[in-house]
């Protein structure tokens, strides 16, 4: 297990609005013996809504990233590409699926991108949660926990991109458990709640903030009613929507890697704001 090196695709959000997510993801992976190697060259994945349409032009960005992974994977002798952001996961995984299932489409894209080598369709897109579950294992995660976590009652919030469409779901799309299991492995209490797979309102935030405020309130109230004092997410957009539209005194939302970093005693990787969230939870109880 030690010395596992995996290619990873950060995506734009992790380099700008979600820097804390990337920092903690790299740190906790390292603690678990996984070195995440950023693709040497990459572009924006194209984002989920581009994949909704049957427009080859909008699949080019993702295929180009898969080619970058193919180039780097050859050197590493590994075809697994780790994603951290839910949106990037969904986009890359879906486009990968589309071109694998439709050789004609892949040929069109390869011919259009005549400046690149052909994509051969053999990259495997995975999410960091799957790395921790399947390649590291929860037993090893338990070993690394250095802090008492039982006062933290964390509601896993999956949103859409990790679970839908079901062809690319990382778990049972109606009843996912992967984050719950991780939270429990960290020694915190996992609070499963009915809105865990609800949409956060996504890009509606651009057009009408009210929609997002209402959705965020619904999600947060439900999590609170089920006894949570924190919401845990994998998605920078869910994180943004739930936190920027938070009710006064509503419970905060953090990335799952921040919860892990806290459990592992890697406080130095957490932002002062996130540390404050944890300290507040411990004070209140």
């Amino acid at each position, binding site marked *: 297990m030690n010395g596992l090196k995996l290619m990873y695709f950060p995506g734009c959000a992790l*380099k*700008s609005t979600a820097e804390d997510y990337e920092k903690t993801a790299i740190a906790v992976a390292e603690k678990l013996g996984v070195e995440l190697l950023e693709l040497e060259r*990459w*572009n924006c994945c194209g984002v989920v809504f581009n994949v909704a349409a049957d427009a080859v032009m909008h699949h080019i960005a993702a295929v180009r990233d898969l080619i970058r992974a193919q180039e780097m994977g050859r050197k590493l002798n590994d075809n697994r590409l780790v994603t951290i952001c839910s949106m990037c996961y969904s986009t890359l995984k879906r486009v990968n699926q589309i071109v694998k299932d439709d050789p004609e489409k892949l040929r069109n894209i390869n011919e259009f991108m005549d400046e690149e080598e052909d994509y051969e369709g053999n990259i495997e897109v995975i999410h960091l949660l799957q790395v921790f579950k399947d390649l590291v294992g929860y037993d090893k995660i338990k070993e690394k926990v250095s802090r008492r976590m039982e006062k933290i009652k964390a509601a896993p919030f999956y949103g859409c991109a990790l679970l839908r469409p079901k062809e690319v779901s990382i778990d049972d799309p109606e009843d996912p458990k992967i984050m719950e299991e991780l939270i429990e492995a960290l020694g915190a209490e996992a609070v499963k709640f009915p809105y865990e797979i609800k949409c956060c309102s996504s890009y509606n935030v651009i057009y009408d903030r009210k929609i997002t405020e209402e959705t965020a309130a619904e999600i947060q109230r439900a999590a609170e009613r089920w006894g949570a004092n924190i919401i845990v997410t994998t998605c920078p957009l869910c994180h943004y929507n739930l936190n920027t539209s938070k009710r006064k005194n509503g419970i905060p939302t953090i990335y799952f890697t921040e919860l892990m970093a806290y459990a592992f005693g890697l406080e130095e990787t957490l932002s002062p704001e996130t540390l404050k969230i944890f300290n507040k939870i411990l004070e209140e109880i």
Partner: protein
Amino acid sequence: MGEHVKNVKMVKIYIMGKEYEVPEGLTIMKAMEYAGYRFIRGIGCRGGFCGACSTIYRMKNDYRLYTGLACQTTVQDGMYLVQIPFTPAEKPKYNVDELKPTGTTILSIFPEIARCVACNACTKACPQNLQVMDAIQAIKRGDLAKAAELCFDCISCGLCTIRCPAEIIHYHAFQLVRRLYGKYIAKKAKHLEERVKEILQGKYDEELEKLAKMTIDEWKKLYEERDIEK
């Protein structure tokens, strides 16, 4: 045709659809002048640096649209070409002193950047062989140092901009990237700051006044006898 070109091999080119025979080996610019065109705009340094003489062309039996600078690209037989002397684009006004050096700043002035689909048409069009799309993508993720590095050799010819399906105005955005990088991110040159300070303190005032009072001949003499830095 004059006597002097009798033994030179001629090639056939098409300028805006009209056929001309021109000597091989000429640049597109010289060939057009040979054919009788006189450039008023769309011409500048003739050395491949100013970006004024953008040209697009196709070759016989080749589906690709090629790009180049007329002063740098030699004519080939069967070339269909036209000049793109200017790429229409509004130059946004901003005060670089009031901006923050972030990707968001650039996206707020050039929001089209968010529409990039990574098709790479810009990169294929660049006569400077820059990784144009990678530079746009670096802006998108807020890595201005990387973007500035990738677009450092941009000559603002506008060929990327005219090819972009997302209608991004690359060359104006790149200028802003380099300004923000130079002002806020790049390491400051210490010796420059010291020299500016010396100038402001009047260290060279006396010398300058002396020079201002000299005659042309004294100037020439001074120039000829100057110390040349080794």
